[in-house]
């Protein structure tokens, strides 16, 4: 109807009006009619010419007028028709344009809703290139499964289809999906119309996707505004967490997400904590369990923490750096995470996920807005919190500091004050009215005026008011307060108010008083201290010194303050003192005092003992050193003197002459005694050596003697001679006589030690009435002195009666005797000290020796209480010295020995005899050790036992080693025995087995007999197995060592082992990844593993898990006991969780025939064989077992050192694959018969020898030389192509003599004489030889040489 049929007809486009045509036609027809009818009339009525003309005229007029009329009518009609046509055409044109170019899709659908016609817009909406692609299809072909409102398309379309048939017109929404997958939301209006019987649907389809988006956006904006409003509203009532939840909930809603989650991020930004997890709605919200996890481990939803802005992953399964979801997690299709920042740190991560559409920037902007709002709220909240906290802490601070604050409004006279003010004034803030007067009333009367004046002054002077005063509380007690305030003034300069604080300083006052008192006391102590107390700065300058410093140094304190410490110290001690000071400053100072010498102002050297300590400032920085110094000069001097005396007096004294008076006496002391004696008696005194030379400075000497007489040569000689004579020993008493020098009276008395005259004490130079001036003058002339001077001096000599002088001389003798005694005591003391020192030194030497010796030493008193133990004891027993001192050695009792054992020991030693024996003792940690002990009594001089000394040696290891040795010997013996019988045994068993087979054949059908024979056969087989294992145990089976990967072997064997252990057991294999290859015989190692696994299985009667593990192990020398080897090993362990084994069982574990299994179930050879195999491989087996816990067997095998060829298939025949260890003997075979040569070579190589074979004597010599002659054995054929075997042997032996020689020869070779061979020490071997004979001969030849 529409289509081509709608195209306008061509006539409509004709220029000539139709009305004119019709009218003209009519005119033409009418004209013709008239002409013809008139002509006819003329024919029939000829006389009617005139009528005819008239008729013609009438007719013409009529036709003309009717034609005109017709034309007019037609023209009118035509006009109307024309317009309609044009309109129609235009309308059609418009319609076509509308149809083609409409923005909405317009389609005509058939009765099956199939596309019949559609426009361009349709193509756009349906996402196809041309309408042809749509024709024939239905809109349902372009529909997703689910409609926008969530209804299924199938259901919805049924509904729509139903309605379409009923209603004329229908309008509905429909979601389409384009072939590209893009969803398009449409609005469709359908109109049903019919053409003929056929009904059609015209549908207008409008793409409303954008509109929906806009609407959604608007909705979202509204929602966002609402959210923000609600957020602000709720911000006052909700907690942080609740706010977060609120925001999360709204974030989920805002973005149209299905899920939401929230993680709090820790302060250090290193861990996150999942706090909330939401499903689609609040109902399914739940709080996650404690789930702190490191940020680094979290999935990519924490990417926003690093990015610090929203992160969107719209394709989560393919998103980068995702770490998977936890078990049970909702599947995540896409998500967006947004960080909430505070102070440039991420506090919280909000996440939303599984939105139907992709997350876009809009989502992120929206959530960011919410986050900003949340951030603002939180910031404000933090500020408020801080403010509150500050206020709280301020009032807390006031309370703690006892400071109250107040404001005094001067005009009103009111005072506002903080709670603390009331507290300080001891009043109740409820009842007390704070005014200036009410406060002033409480001020102490004595302080009141001062306080008021100070306040007024400060008001007037505009200064800060500050005053300390007392207040009297209502309780009557006094409190000290410190007031301080500032004043505020108005524009006219009048004070308006004062703002101030009041502080309770009572405690401070008391403390200050206390401190002042303490400081005073301290100062008093320092001032009165006899020790010098001083401080120096870090460079040694004095900064403080007490009064005692003046006494010691002679300098005033002020002078000292300008000095450095070094100025006082003697130069030789300065480095030592400065070194100490430096250390003190550096902080690594050794405590204690030290001594050095100083020189005081008077130039005297003083010994000072100093102790220092650091002085630190409030920042704990050292700023000075404080010292306490004591004058120890006297002590030092005494010490030195004593030391000197000891050294001097304890020299071997053959001749007492050697004893010097200086060594016997303190000369200063002697001088003092002398001076005092002289002052008391007014006589001149001097101590002199036996020969008369003075020891001391003479006191009270006369000018006569010293200045005049002694100045002359003769006078001096007389004096000395006289003194010497006076000093002679005189049992009668002191010698009193006139001096040779002019007869002045002198007296002398000797001081002797051990009968030896060591000094003389001389007094004298008094005159009595007997001397005359003349005598003096004569003497002056005699010695050649000035006569007048001498006489003048003579009169200065004190006069004393003879009796008086005698009395003085007597007392002098008493003094001298006393001095002699004292000298003797000094001597004795010195000797004693020297002896003591020697003894101490000896003791020290001995105790050092005991301390350092490896043997344990225990000393007890006679009651057995320990008085001493040495370090060796401590290390072996595990007890420290302090723990055992005073204890009895029975604390070490192991419980192994009987009471009798200890009783015997005690009986032996208490009877005075030493006891020796082996003893088991228990260490502190409970383990037993064995010691070889000798316990001896120690007797004093009277023969009484005073101590017992035990010297013990820990022999645990030694005994273990011995046991191990015995064990291995035993096993070797068993091995030898086994291999010895195996051959015969096997032959016997072969016979039995063989006959069984024959019997079985011959008794076919005789069931009973057959059964018995089979039993015999089984028994024989068992015997065969046993023999084979015995042979294996004898560990001389040749090994086919190859390079093996233990893990690989285990992996291959594991399924077999699983079958072996059975279903009741599980077998776990735990291989270590980096395992070095080992060199081993594969089948033997498999046998070992099998044995261990079978044992593990049998240890768990109720089933369990057997764990096989491999690992790498490396040992330093002796780390694993004596049997182990240092180096790198591979450890294979087989562990069971079985019954475990007792120590006794473990001890015998590897012995052949030792079994714990029931009779007939175990041969007792499995572990023995394993042991042999592993040992042969250079490894060892370790056993760990706990009763009830299970056992672990660890097999250690050395890693391959690289010289072993890799595993090759057995069939390959090439060079013998035998390991050539260093321990293998080297053999040279010299034989021209190649068959014999290679046989010998093969046999020897199989036995582990390193063999070189050559075919001639010359070659042998060459090879021998090239190898440096290092051969253990030479096997030489007696007859060689280029010489005799014996000669060759001789030559080679000359080159290197260490090799054993075997000469072999066939019988019948007449030239060879066996005795010639044996004579040279060679061994003769008959050819042909059995393999075994060859080996036996080779072995014994080598052993012979050894």
């Amino acid at each position: 109807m529409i289509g081509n049929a709608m195209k306008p007809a061509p006539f409509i486009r004709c220029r000539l009006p139709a009305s004119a045509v019709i009218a003209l036609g009519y005119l033409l027809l009418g004209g013709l009619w008239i002409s013809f009818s008139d002509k006819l009339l003329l024919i029939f009525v000829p006389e009617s010419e005139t009528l005819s003309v008239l008729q013609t005229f009438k007719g013409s007029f009529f036709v003309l007028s009717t034609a005109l009329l017709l034309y007019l009518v037609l023209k009118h009609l035509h006009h109307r028709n024309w317009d309609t046509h044009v309109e129609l055409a235009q309308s059609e044109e418009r319609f076509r344009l509308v149809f083609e170019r409409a923005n909405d899709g317009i389609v005509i659908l058939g009765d099956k809703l199939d596309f019949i016609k559609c426009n361009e817009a349709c193509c756009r909406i349906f996402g196809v290139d041309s309408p042809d692609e749509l024709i024939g299809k239905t809109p349902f072909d372009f529909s997703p499964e689910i409609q926008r409102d969530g209804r299924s398309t199938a259901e919805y379309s049924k509904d729509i289809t139903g309605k379409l048939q009923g209603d004329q017109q229908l309008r509905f929404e429909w979601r389409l999906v384009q072939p590209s997958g893009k969803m398009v939301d449409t609005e469709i209006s359908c109109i049903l119309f019919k053409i003929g019987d056929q009904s059609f649907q015209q549908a207008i389809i409008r793409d409303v996707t954008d509109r929906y988006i806009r609407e959604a956006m608007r909705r979202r904006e509204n929602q966002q505004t609402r959210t923000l409003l609600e957020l602000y509203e709720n911000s006052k009532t909700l907690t942080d967490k609740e706010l977060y939840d609120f925001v999360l909930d709204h974030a989920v809603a805002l973005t149209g997400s299905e899920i939401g989650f929230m993680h709090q991020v820790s302060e250090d930004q290193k861990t996150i904590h999942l706090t909330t997890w939401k499903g689609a709605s609040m109902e399914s919200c739940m709080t996650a369990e404690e789930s702190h996890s490191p940020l680094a481990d979290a999935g990519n939803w924490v990417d926003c923490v690093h990015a610090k802005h929203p992160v969107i992953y719209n394709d989560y399964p393919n998103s980068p750096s995702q770490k998977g979801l936890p078990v049970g997690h909702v599947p995540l299709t896409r998500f967006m995470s947004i960080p909430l920042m505070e102070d440039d740190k991420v506090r919280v991560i909000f996440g939303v996920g599984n939105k139907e559409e992709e997350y876009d920037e809009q989502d992120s902007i929206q959530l960011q807005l919410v986050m900003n709002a949340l951030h603002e709220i939180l910031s404000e909240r933090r500020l408020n919190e801080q403010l509150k906290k500050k206020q709280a802490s301020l009032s807390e601070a006031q309370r703690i500091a006892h400071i109250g604050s107040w404001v005094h409004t001067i005009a009103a006279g009111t005072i506002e004050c903080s709670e603390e003010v009331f507290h300080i004034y001891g009043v109740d803030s409820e009842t007390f009215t704070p005014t200036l007067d009410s406060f002033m009333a409480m001020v102490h009367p004595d302080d009141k005026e001062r306080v008021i004046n100070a306040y007024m002054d400060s008001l007037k002077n505009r200064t800060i008011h500050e005053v300390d005063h007392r207040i009297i509380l209502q309780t009557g007690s006094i409190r000290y307060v410190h007031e301080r305030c500032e004043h505020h003034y108005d524009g006219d300069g009048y004070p308006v108010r004062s703002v101030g604080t009041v502080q309770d300083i009572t405690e401070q006052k008391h403390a200050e008083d206390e401190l002042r008192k303490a400081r005073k006391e301290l100062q008093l102590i320092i001032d009165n201290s006899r020790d010098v107390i001083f401080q120096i700065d870090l460079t040694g300058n004095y900064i403080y010194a007490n009064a005692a410093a003046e006494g010691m140094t002679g300098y005033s304190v002020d002078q000292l303050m300008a000095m450095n410490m070094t100025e006082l110290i003697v130069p030789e001690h300065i480095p030592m003192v400065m070194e100490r000071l430096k250390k003190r400053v550096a902080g690594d100072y050794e405590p204690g005092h030290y001594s050095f010498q100083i020189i005081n102002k008077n130039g005297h050297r003083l010994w000072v003992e100093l102790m220092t300590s650091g002085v630190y400032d409030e920042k704990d920085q050292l700023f000075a050193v404080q010292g306490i110094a004591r004058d120890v000069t006297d002590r030092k001097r005494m010490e030195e003197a004593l030391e000197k005396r000891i050294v001097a007096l304890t020299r071997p004294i053959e001749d007492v002459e050697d004893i010097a008076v200086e060594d016997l006496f303190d000369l200063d002391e002697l001088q003092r005694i002398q001076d005092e004696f002289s002052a008391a008696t007014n006589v001149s005194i001097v101590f002199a050596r036996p020969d008369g030379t003075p020891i001391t400075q003479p006191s009270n000497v006369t000018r006569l003697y010293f200045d005049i007489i002694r100045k002359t040569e003769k006078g001096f000689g007389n004096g000395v001679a006289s003194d010497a004579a006076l000093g002679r020993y005189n049992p009668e008493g002191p010698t009193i006589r006139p001096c040779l020098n002019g007869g002045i009276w002198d007296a002398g008395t000797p001081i002797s030690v051990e009968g030896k005259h060591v000094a003389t004490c001389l007094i004298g130079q008094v005159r009595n009435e007997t001397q005359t001036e003349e005598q003096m003058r004569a003497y002056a002339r005699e010695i050649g002195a000035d006569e007048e001077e001498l006489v003048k001096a003579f009169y200065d000599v004190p006069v004393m009666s003879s009796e008086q002088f005698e009395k003085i001389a007597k007392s002098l003798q008493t003094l001298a005797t006393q001095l002699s005694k004292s000298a003797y005591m000094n001597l004795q003391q010195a000797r004693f000290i020297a002896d003591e020192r020697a003894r101490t030194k000896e003791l020290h030497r001995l105790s050092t020796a005991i301390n350092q010796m490896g043997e344990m030493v225990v000393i007890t008193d006679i009651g057995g209480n320990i008085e001493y133990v040495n370090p060796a004891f401590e290390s072996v027993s595990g007890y420290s010295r302090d723990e055992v001192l005073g204890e009895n050695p029975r604390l070490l009792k192991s419980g192994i020995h009987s009471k009798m054992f200890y009783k015997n020991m005690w009986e032996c030693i208490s009877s005075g005899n030493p006891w020796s024996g082996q003893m088991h003792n228990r260490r502190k940690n409970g383990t037993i050790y064995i010691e070889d002990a000798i316990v001896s009594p120690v007797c004093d001089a009277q023969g009484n036992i005073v101590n017992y000394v035990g010297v013990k040696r820990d022999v645990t290891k030694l005994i273990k080693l011995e046991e191990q040795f015995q064990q291995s010997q035993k096993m070797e013996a068993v091995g030898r025995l086994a291999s010895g019988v195996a051959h015969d045994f096997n032959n016997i068993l072969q016979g039995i087995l063989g006959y069984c087979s024959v019997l079985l054949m011959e008794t076919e059908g005789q069931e009973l007999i057959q059964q018995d024979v089979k039993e015999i056969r089984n028994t024989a087989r068992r015997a065969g197995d046993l023999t084979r294992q015995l042979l294996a145990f004898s560990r001389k089976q040749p090994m086919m060592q190859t390079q093996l990967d233990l893990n690989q072997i285990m992996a291959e064997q594991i399924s077999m082992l699983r079958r072996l252990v059975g279903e009741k057991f599980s077998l776990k294999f735990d291989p270590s990844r980096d395992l070095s290859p080992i060199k081993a015989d594969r089948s033997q190692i498999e046998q070992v593993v099998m044995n261990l696994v079978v044992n593990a299985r049998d240890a768990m009667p109720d089933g369990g898990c057997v764990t096989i593990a491999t690992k790498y192990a490396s040992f330093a020398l002796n780390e694993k006991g004596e049997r182990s080897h240092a180096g790198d090993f591979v450890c294979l362990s087989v562990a069971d969780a079985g019954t475990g084994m007792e120590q006794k069982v473990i001890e015998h574990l590897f012995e052949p025939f030792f079994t714990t299994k029931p009779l007939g179930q175990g041969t007792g050879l499995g572990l023995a064989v394993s042991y042999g195999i592993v040992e042969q491989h250079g490894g060892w087996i370790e056993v760990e077992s706990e009763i009830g816990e299970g056992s672990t067997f660890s097999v250690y095998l050395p890693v391959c050192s690289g010289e072993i060829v890799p595993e090759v298939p057995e069939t390959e025949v090439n060079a013998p694959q035998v390991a050539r260890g260093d321990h293998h003997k080297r053999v040279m075979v010299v034989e021209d018969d190649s068959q014999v040569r290679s046989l010998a070579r093969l046999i020897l190589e199989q036995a582990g020898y390193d063999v070189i074979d050559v075919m001639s004597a010359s070659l042998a010599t060459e090879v021998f030389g090239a190898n440096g002659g290092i051969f253990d054995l030479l096997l030489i054929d007696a007859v060689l192509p280029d010489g005799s075997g014996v000669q060759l042997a001789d030559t080679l032996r000359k080159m290197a003599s260490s090799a054993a020689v075997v000469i072999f020869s066939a019988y019948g070779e007449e030239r060879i004489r066996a005795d010639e061979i044996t004579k040279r020490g060679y061994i003769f071997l008959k050819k042909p030889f059995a393999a075994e004979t060859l080996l036996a001969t080779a072995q014994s030849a080598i052993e012979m040489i050894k």
Partner: protein
Amino acid sequence: MATILLIDDDSSIRSVFKRFLERHEYSVSVAEDGEAALRLLDEVSPDLVVTDIMMPHKDGIEVILELRKQHPDLPIIAISGGMRVAPMDFLPMVKKFGVKKVFYKPVELSDLLCAIREELGQ
């Protein structure tokens, strides 16, 4: 009927092997050591040799080497009961001389039979 030369120094083994193999329709010649075996060799010209290893006078290895020299393709089966003095195993060694089947004593006769049949291609 295939002929087997059986070499063993143990008489009971000789006799039981012989009886057993004869029951399985082999013609069996026996020798008590290597020397005897080599003497018999031409006389019996065996299709297969079963030999013990350790024997007095001439042991199994010598026999095998000699046999290899004379009859390189003659199938040999070696059975060893171990050594008396030196606990050594020669069976891996004889494999190098082309002895394909080796057994340790005591051997199950059925196993031996299988091996013989296999070697003779039966």
